[in-house]
């Protein structure tokens, strides 16, 4: 399922230590995330999965008292360097949240929001972008006649798809997904996973999940975290069939704790 070599990591996380005030949430994490693959981050609650994800688009900057040491390189550029433009970074690295959070405006405006704030297209071109983005998440056919309806009128699964479409509209490179299916039923979950398999042809995807089957089903690689430390990182089939660390095995077989 995964490529043997990793010549071209999209994201290089090097010796990252992250502190919330005095509490250390990430401990010397080093990890290479390959391009156009799905990398799953798993581990028990509070082990720092979301924290790591939020390092990659610098959403942790919003939490006051956060300190980051080490380097995070995307396409070979350190995103924590002083010269980095956060707007550009977050355009390139999009994020899908645990609870679908479409804006309380129309479906069309949700998708057009990104292109509009990034001045990507004229008003006329925007409807093309919206169509393409909604098609990419398989919403176009069902929603094309009600684009002016409020996004809050959609089902949970449609809302999550819309949130993905909203990102796709600005053509990012990386999609970060923090438990994107935890508010969805199993059927919707499966359909979102199918969508991820389509999207990974164009995007590098990092997903946090508590669902072992989900990690096994969709990801190419798995990183197991415990108490802020990266315990094991490797190809999915290896992690799930013959993990090299006992802790990893205990966790994925449910013998954890």
């Amino acid at each position, binding site marked *: 399922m995964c490529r043997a070599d990793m010549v071209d990591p999209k994201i290089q996380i090097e010796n990252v230590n992250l502190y919330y005030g005095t509490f250390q949430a990430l401990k010397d994490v080093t990890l290479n995330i390959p391009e156009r693959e799905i990398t799953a981050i798993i581990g028990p609650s509070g082990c720092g999965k979301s924290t790591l994800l939020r390092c990659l*688009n610098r*959403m942790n900057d*919003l939490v006051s008292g956060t300190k980051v040491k080490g380097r995070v390189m995307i396409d070979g550029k350190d995103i924590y360097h002083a010269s980095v433009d*956060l*707007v*550009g*970074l*977050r*355009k390139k690295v*999009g*994020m899908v*949240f645990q*609870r679908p*959070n*479409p*804006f*309380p*405006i129309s479906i069309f405006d949700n998708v057009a*929001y*990104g292109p509009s*704030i*990034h001045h990507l297209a004229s008003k006329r071109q925007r409807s093309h972008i919206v169509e393409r983005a909604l098609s990419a998440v398989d919403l176009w056919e069902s929603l094309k006649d009600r684009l002016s309806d*409020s996004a*809050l*009128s*959609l*089902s949970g699964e449609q809302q999550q798809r819309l*949130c993905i479409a*909203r*990102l796709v509209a*600005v053509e990012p490179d990386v999609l970060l997904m923090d438990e994107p299916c935890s508010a969805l039923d199993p059927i919707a979950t499966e359909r979102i996973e199918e969508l991820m398999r389509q999207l990974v042809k164009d995007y590098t995807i990092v997903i946090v999940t508590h669902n072992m089957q989900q990690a096994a089903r969709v990801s190419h690689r798995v990183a197991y975290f415990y108490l802020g430390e990266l315990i094991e990182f490797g190809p999915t089939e290896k992690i799930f069939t013959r993990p090299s660390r006992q802790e990893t095995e205990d966790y994925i077989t449910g013998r954890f704790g």
Partner: protein
Amino acid sequence: MRKYYEFVVEGLIFASGIASIIFVLLIFIFLLKEGLMVFRDVGLFDFLFGKFWYPISEPPRLGILPLILGSLWVTVGATIISVPLGIACAIFIGEIAPGWLREILKAGVELLAAIPSIVLGFIGLVTLVPLVKKFFGLPTGLTAIAGSIMLAFMAMPTIVSIMEDALNAVPKGYREGSIAMGATKWQTIHRIVLPSASSGIIAAVMLGIGRVIGETMAVMMITGNAAVIPHTFFQPVRTMTATIAAEMGETVQGSEHYFALFAIGIVLFAITFLVNLLADLSLHRKPVRA
């Protein structure tokens, strides 16, 4: 035994609940009973749109158009000043100011709300009125504009605190979602946060206006109280509230003048009721959800 106890407690609670409604009804009935008497002598149209308020001439002329317009000018002026300021202030407090500054500002706004209106009016009279006179080069500073500025200060705390609550109620996920897309703070505020809070913002503005329309003491002290139809902000005006407050003490109970003052009360009541209703409607408007 226990059953009786329950019964008595329930009855008491019911009675106190009902009492407030009964009081409102009684007040309303009294207001109507006294106020409607005036229409024995003047028609509704002549009362509302009559251009002259000479209540003690013989026969009295009871047209309240100058008073309605006086209230209107002062209120519109106060709204024009206080709404943008209030919105900006609420955005600053709720979205931009760092924690410590936010607390100071909130305390300041609460303090402003706590100043009795007579005190504000008094301060306005000795500071604002001369300033207005000098700044605009007017024969007198006792004008609609002075009243508007003063009332804007009174409406600010209402507008700011309700609007701040409205901003607070906007889910964190909206802001995070927008910031995570690369939107700047300002883009997030004006494209996502403000539209999400729009019903609360409208309610805040409405309640602020309600406060302004009903205000009496301060306007009476600084608007000049001339019952003539105002043409600019720089003329003395007389509001409906000030008219009632100033004239109720010196009128003969049961006279036409007396009834007319009650009728002005009805007009005021209708206006504030309408404004509060609008505020309520927008505050409780449910967002569309499937």
